């Protein structure tokens, strides 16, 4: 390593670090495509209220199932609502709910995993068996139970999704912590008498952060798929809120003669998932974690 050159290097602040990672991600074609798709979706989610040409809940029986035209770009659905408006507004709900859900999943999954990895022993055993038990429950059944008991409001969906998608992160965080915990710098911190909290915050988190973030990014795309499945089954957001899963579900019977009302939400959903997946992969590569060799648990 060129030591003389590095001595010029200043300690970077968080922003410049983030920018550097983004730059590395965008330098690969797959990363660039992923980032562009994701950025496009996020931008659309922010701007959709201003871009939407019509009211998303305006029902007009006279305009039922119109084919795409210059007036209604993506056609209209069975209630005469503009599909273009509903598609660009539909991404908004899905992105918001799953984004905050992922953050909750990251926080509780990551912290619990690190904690278990650090303390080890019986506590670790018990907690991990509980996590295993939850992993064995089909999530969609459990989600249906929660939603039917507590309703389908955003306040219920976000923590419920966050909980179910955090279980996998617990295991990844724990495994990453195990890699670090045996290193001498942890032993050294212990011998100095640092508290567990200080060891987690100062010594462990900086070393497992990358692995957990990448895992969280992957969980995001899975959660999006899960959330859309819920909506498809009618347990996601309630109508008339526009949502891709719901739109696909409503229009699927009409697919044979009104394909346009299904195609738009399908393209929206799959492009967003592909975008997140590509971004997560590029993110992992930019951070030096190769996901192809480390399969998620």
């Amino acid at each position, binding site marked *: 390593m060129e030591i003389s050159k590095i001595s010029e290097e200043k300690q970077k602040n968080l922003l410049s670090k983030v920018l550097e990672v983004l730059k590395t991600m965008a330098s690969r074609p797959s990363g660039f495509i992923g980032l562009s798709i994701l950025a496009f979706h996020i931008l659309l989610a922010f701007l959709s209220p201003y871009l939407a040409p019509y009211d998303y809940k305006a029902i007009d029986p006279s305009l039922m199932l119109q084919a795409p035209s210059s007036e209604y770009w993506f056609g209209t659905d069975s209630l005469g609502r503009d599909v273009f408006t509903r598609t660009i507004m539909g991404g908004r709900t899905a992105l918001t709910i799953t984004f905050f859900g992922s953050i909750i999943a990251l926080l509780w999954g990551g912290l619990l995993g690190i904690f278990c990895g650090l303390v080890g022993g019986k506590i670790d055993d018990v907690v991990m068996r509980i996590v295993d038990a939850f992993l064995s429950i089909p999530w969609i059944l459990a989600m249906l139970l929660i939603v039917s008991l507590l309703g389908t409001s955003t306040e219920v969906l976000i923590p419920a999704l966050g909980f179910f998608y955090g279980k996998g992160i617990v295991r990844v965080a724990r495994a990453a912590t195990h890699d670090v915990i045996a290193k*001498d710098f942890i032993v*050294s911190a212990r*011998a100095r008498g640092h508290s567990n909290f200080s060891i987690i915050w100062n010594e462990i988190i900086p070393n497992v952060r990358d692995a957990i973030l990448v895992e969280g990014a992957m969980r995001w795309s899975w959660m999006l798929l899960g959330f859309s499945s819920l909506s498809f089954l009618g347990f996601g957001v309630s109508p008339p809120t526009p949502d891709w899963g719901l739109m696909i579900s409503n229009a699927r019977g009409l697919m044979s003669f009104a394909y346009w009302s299904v195609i738009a939400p399908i393209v929206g959903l799959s492009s967003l998932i592909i975008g997140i997946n590509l971004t997560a992969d590029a993110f992992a590569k930019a951070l030096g974690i190769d996901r192809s060799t480390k399969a998620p648990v």
Partner: protein
Amino acid sequence: MENIIHSVKNLSIGFRSKKNDEISILRNVTTNIKKGETVGIVGESGSGKSTLALAMMGYVKQGLYTIEGECLFESSNLLKMKNKDLEQIRGRKIAMIPQNAGQSLTPNLKIGYQIDEALRLHTKFNKNERDKKISELLNKVRLPSPETMAFRYPHELSGGQQQRVAVAMALAGKPDLLLLDEPTTGLDVTTQAHVLELLKFIAKDTGTSMVYVSHDLGAIAQVSDRIIVMYAGEIVLEGPARSILKSPIHPYTYGLLKSIPKLSLSGLPDSMPGSQPQPGNIGIGCSFYDRCKIAEDKCKKNSPSLEHILELQTSVRCFNYKNLKKFNDKINSITQKKNISKGVNEILNLTDVSISYAKQKILDQILNKITDTNPTVKDINIEIKKGETIALVGESGSGKSTILKSIAGLLKIKDGKIKFENDRVLSSDLKKRDSNDLRAIQLIFQNPDESLNPNHTVEQILSQPLKLYFSLTGNELKKKVAELLNKVRLGEFYMTRYPRQLSGGEKQRVAVARAFAAKPDIILCDEVTSALDVSVQAAVLNLLQTLKEDFGTTYIFVSHDLAVVRAISDRVAVLYQGRLCEIGPSKNVYQFPSHPYTEVLLGAVLEPDPDIKPKLVAKDIVEEKPPEKGCCFQGRCPRILGDKCKNETPPWQIGDDGNAIRCHISVEDLKKNQIKK
């Protein structure tokens, strides 16, 4: 010139950097290997010695490529050969013995099968002949009972035995050239000496040429006929082993030899300033210019070429080699340790300390029954005085690190007491120690790569103890960090660097600074120089000594390297299987009479001098568990008396010089026998 079997011609190997610059790791290396000769390639880490050895069998690591030159074996260039043709040569004509045999043997296949595989590939023997050949090979590498050995799995063998199996496999194809890449580096001193003995025997017996790559001049000195010294990817000195080791004419080799601690000399070895330039960072002049004591202006601007001196049969890459001798005569001295006043006060006292790794059963825990009658570490009694350096020496498994961990509070002791300052009993549980006790005892670890958090800057690393113990913040903290860096001879600009941006020696300095940040009374050093290159090792040892003189810190120094211990310690405790064998002032421990185990250890030390041969007196076996009763060393003792040693715990015999030996043989008898040898 018919007897040259392998020649490397003007070989350069390198890689492309991110900026697409060509960076060479090997630079214009030319050398010949003659039939039946053993060539030692020596250099510090990063000097390109392993790359050269691998290229000799036509292998270039992924990411590297050949820039120019060739490796000629039987008049064909190995580096341009197709894989299929290389298969005919590798293993059959050129064989390789890797560094870590434990990792290069397949764990789920029996030893016999693995050797058989090599035989099947490289010979035309039928099944019966091969079976005979396997036991012949195992016999040749002196493994006990070859018949049963063939049916064992690699994990059932000790490190030394695994290395022997690797040698047997390499010999299976009757190679003309054997490449050995640090074959004894991970082994214990006694095992290492035995394996080297074997290699020497094989070289003589089979007439195989060997290329022995190592950083250890001691090992190289024992086996080589000719030595090649590498520095920054170049050969800087090449010639007959004796003349290179006895009177090196290149300043780097001279400095390297000076920086190796020797058994015969007490006091710290000279260190070489600076470190080896990294590939891609080598200037136009001599690559050793920055560290050279006899460098002149021309060395900075021109790179010297390899000059052959006919009367010495030596090639040297230096403009100034003739001046080296004159210069050396002037400075030929060794830094003596200053006799700093040692307090008479005891700082730490270990009384009857036993440590057990065995887990107690719940029932026994409730009944408070002691189940493990044969703990890993037993009956350790050591008094440590303020300001002294005491060393714990022994091979792997001797319990030296275990004792260190329990002093640090990382491992609970089973029995006995650890008393700190004025007979205050120190809890063996870290959580029960108060902050001041925690501060007073600090640790420095073997491998600085692992002991420094890779995601922290040097400033953050050094701030940890300062914040914890002294609650420093802001400018005060920063000032203190800078002060610490200066103390370990690193500049303030190191503050913003990450560990990965530092060299091994610099990292270890940061680790030393972190330990001193706590203003400790005792520093526990766990093999602190084992992961470092020799020239860096000398510098770190010198640093530790100066810091000790400044602060009056007490060191407890754990090492397997007897020469390093000799250099730094005031007192030495020799451990075998978790039991103390001998303890006393270091000059007395290193003199006879000694405990038979100390004698074995001292005999096995490899000195970088072809005239000092290791004395192998003990059996080369590895004991996994200490014996239940009697002397701990009974299994390997060359002077065993019989049943007495097997049944009775030997008494401590304390000499007038304060040297205590735990042996049934009287000190007088030991003296008589050992001096005769």
